[in-house]
């Protein structure tokens, strides 16, 4: 029995924020879930995957090929009356945004929850976009937990809100709420889970041709008014303390503020508005708060999502108060916050003294050697990179080649001594960007993509590249798993977790099926042979695909031998 299916109601478990979301979804009776993995969201999908694989709980889960597909799977399940969930990292929401924007119009029948896990400071990401913007962009309600306990509670409530409004609800976490453990009190598991529903046809709702979409946009705006009412009364939004100095915070910033108020011993001097249901903005609550304070510090990572709204409301109310935060220079729009940063801002707000901890003089510290993350010892990707390098060297092209790369462990090919990663935008961009380089330059283009990324968004780009007669060599680093995010399956995998028996799509078949003629397979550990094949392929001036097949060594240790 999976630990997140524990029946010990009332007991505390030390859960990750991501695990708490899973527990909340299980308690709420979610029966269909789909996702594409991505840090810091991956543990949500991993736990749902193993719960469904173990088979003793009525949950359908799939790793879809990308976030867009996953959101479509969850959306249609919810349209058919089955509670559903999808989760992704912040940039995954970009991939799914085409679904999101119109899903807001057509809505759902049963509750649907969309989890976006943002990554301020880019611990494991290529940008630090603030996905709260998506909530406003699409007009969807949003909850932001500040602790694992709240993550569970909010997930359950999100299903209820979603069902009452017939709109999906967004739960937005950040790395520091997804990857923090805290006590979570287990609630009861549902007696019955609705695993199958029935889709009721309604062409004036589910098919947003222009005439229907015009109606549904109006419906969405009406629902948003109701959602605002729910935000006003939500127990996730609360005011503590009193006085004319205010603080507003949401998400992990709530934690920093609470600790700062305790450590500075100023709880009784501040009116603190803690927001958890942040969109639609609880306008009445904010106005009431603004009416009572002379100065307010807004503590939120990344964009001034709350700060700007508070300024707008001040203007509406004709209230001339100081709104401090990003624009006052107290906080940056970049990176994540830390407790000291917030403590300093709060002591500045109140004009209280703040004693810095006494540290020994560290000025004589030498520069410390870095520990950049690197490919594991024995990783097959390293062999492939070396073989390509050798082949190009022997062809006299090592110095002129350009290496578009993609997202996965192999992005670490950026670092010395490999240094074979020159251009990257997003998942799947190796293929599209190679197309552009091949028409805009005469340089040799060798690009790299992993097996999971290939299915995520490389396949359609490769169709485009072949059709448009682009000339480059695409190396598919097929290690039979989605390694970087913790070994999730994808359609191409040969080595499987026990019990996983879904049909396989060999990448070779997919590529040949597109009509590409120059397709080769190599075993990168057979060095001579691999170099020879690369030399052969790279001496021709046409689109080629080389599939370097060798399992991730960590994954092989886990599940090797099971085919």
């Amino acid at each position, binding site marked *: 029995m999976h630990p997140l299916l524990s029946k010990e109601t009332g007991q505390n478990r030390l859960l990750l924020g991501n695990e708490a979301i899973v527990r909340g979804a299980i308690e709420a009776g979610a029966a269909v879930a789909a996702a594409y993995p991505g840090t810091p969201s991956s543990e949500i999908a991993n736990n749902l995957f193993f719960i469904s694989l173990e088979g003793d709980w009525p949950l359908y889960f799939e790793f879809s090929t990308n976030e867009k597909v996953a959101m479509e799977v969850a959306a249609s399940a919810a349209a058919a009356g089955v509670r559903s969930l999808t989760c992704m990292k912040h940039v995954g929401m970009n991939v799914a945004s085409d679904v999101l924007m119109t899903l807001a119009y057509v809505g759902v029948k049963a509750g649907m929850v969309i989890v976006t896990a943002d990554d301020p400071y880019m*611990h494991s990401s290529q940008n630090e976009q603030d996905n709260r913007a998506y909530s406003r962009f699409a007009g969807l309600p949003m909850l932001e937990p500040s602790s694992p306990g709240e993550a569970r509670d909010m997930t359950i409530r999100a299903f209820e809100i979603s069902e009452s409004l017939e709109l999906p609800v967004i739960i937005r976490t950040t790395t520091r709420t997804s990857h923090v453990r805290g006590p979570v009190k287990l609630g009861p598991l549902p007696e019955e889970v609705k695993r199958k529903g029935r889709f009721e046809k309604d062409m004036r709702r589910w098919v947003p041709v222009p005439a229907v979409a015009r109606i549904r946009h109006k419906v969405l705006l009406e629902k948003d008014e109701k959602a605002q009412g729910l935000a006003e009364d939500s127990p996730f939004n609360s005011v503590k303390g009193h006085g004319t100095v205010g603080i507003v915070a949401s998400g992990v910033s709530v934690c920093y503020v609470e600790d700062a108020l305790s450590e500075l011993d100023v709880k009784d001097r501040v009116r603190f508005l803690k927001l958890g249901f942040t969109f639609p903005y609880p306008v009445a609550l904010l106005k009431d708060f603004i009416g009572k304070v002379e100065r307010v510090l807004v503590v939120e990572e990344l964009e001034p999502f709350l700060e700007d709204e508070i300024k707008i409301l001040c203007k509406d109310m004709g209230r001339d108060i100081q709104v401090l935060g990003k624009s006052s220079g107290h906080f940056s729009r970049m990176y994540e916050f*830390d407790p000291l940063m917030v403590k300093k801002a709060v002591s500045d707000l109140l004009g209280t003294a703040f004693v810095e901890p006494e*540290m020994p003089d560290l000025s004589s510290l030498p520069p410390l050697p870095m520990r950049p993350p690197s490919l594991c010892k024995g990783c097959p990707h390293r062999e492939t990179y070396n073989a390509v390098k050798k082949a190009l060297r022997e062809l006299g092209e090592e110095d002129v080649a350009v290496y578009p790369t993609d997202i996965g462990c192999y992005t670490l090919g950026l670092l010395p001594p490999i240094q074979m990663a020159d251009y990257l935008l997003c998942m799947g961009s190796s293929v599209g960007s190679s197309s552009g380089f091949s028409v805009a330059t005469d340089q040799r283009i060798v690009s790299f993509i992993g097996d999971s990324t290939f299915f995520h968004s490389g396949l359609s780009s490769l169709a485009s590249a072949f059709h448009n007669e682009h000339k480059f060599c695409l190396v598919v680093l097929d290690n039979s798993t989605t390694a970087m995010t913790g070994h999730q399956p994808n359609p191409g995998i040969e080595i499987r977790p026990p019990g996983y028996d879904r049909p396989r799509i060999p990448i070779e078949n997919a590529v040949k099926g597109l009509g590409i003629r120059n397709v080769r397979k190599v075993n990168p550990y057979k060095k001579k042979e691999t170099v020879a094949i690369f030399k052969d392929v790279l001496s021709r001036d046409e689109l080629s695909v080389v599939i370097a097949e060798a399992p991730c060594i960590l994954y092989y240790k886990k599940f090797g031998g099971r085919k």
Partner: protein
Amino acid sequence: MDTMKILFSGVGGQGTLLASRLMGEAAMAAGMDVRVSEVHGMAQRGGVVESTVMLGGLKSPIISTGEADMLVSFEPLETIRALNRCSRNTSIVTNIRPITPITVKLGQAEYPDVDQWIAFIKSNYRRVCAVDADELARQAGTAKAVNVVLLGVLIGLGELPVTAQMMKETIRGKVKPKFVDANLNAFELGISSVSC
């Protein structure tokens, strides 16, 4: 109780996350409010791995400059790197066995003089316990138990409201059965190596 901010630092693969998790579980079992933060994803591929355990009602998951009450470091270079999070008042538990970073192997950087820096740390911080955790783990029967050795040292300092008994219960409940005995040995060896 007073609040307590414990920073765990090490290199990917050393079991820092398990150590902080065991600490958090033991604290929760003892009825304390606790937060544990972890690093996942790209940062784990052989890089520096940090986690924190925050006790006594603290909500923040991370530790700022100079604010750690205790540092538990699995590797001496990482101890030095984490000093910016320590104040004179910090208690420091450190392993003395280096793990050479790739940048040093490639000749791009120099590994600091461990003895010199341990001496610096001992003379500048409130309480410092430097042990050869790798050797103790080996004596306990599993080289992998470096993390539990260091947990033993941490508990052995007697500064936390978690007793050795509570931690042993947690190890019994959370570690895979076949590794329990070796880990309990490692924990005991850690406790008895406290001489600071």
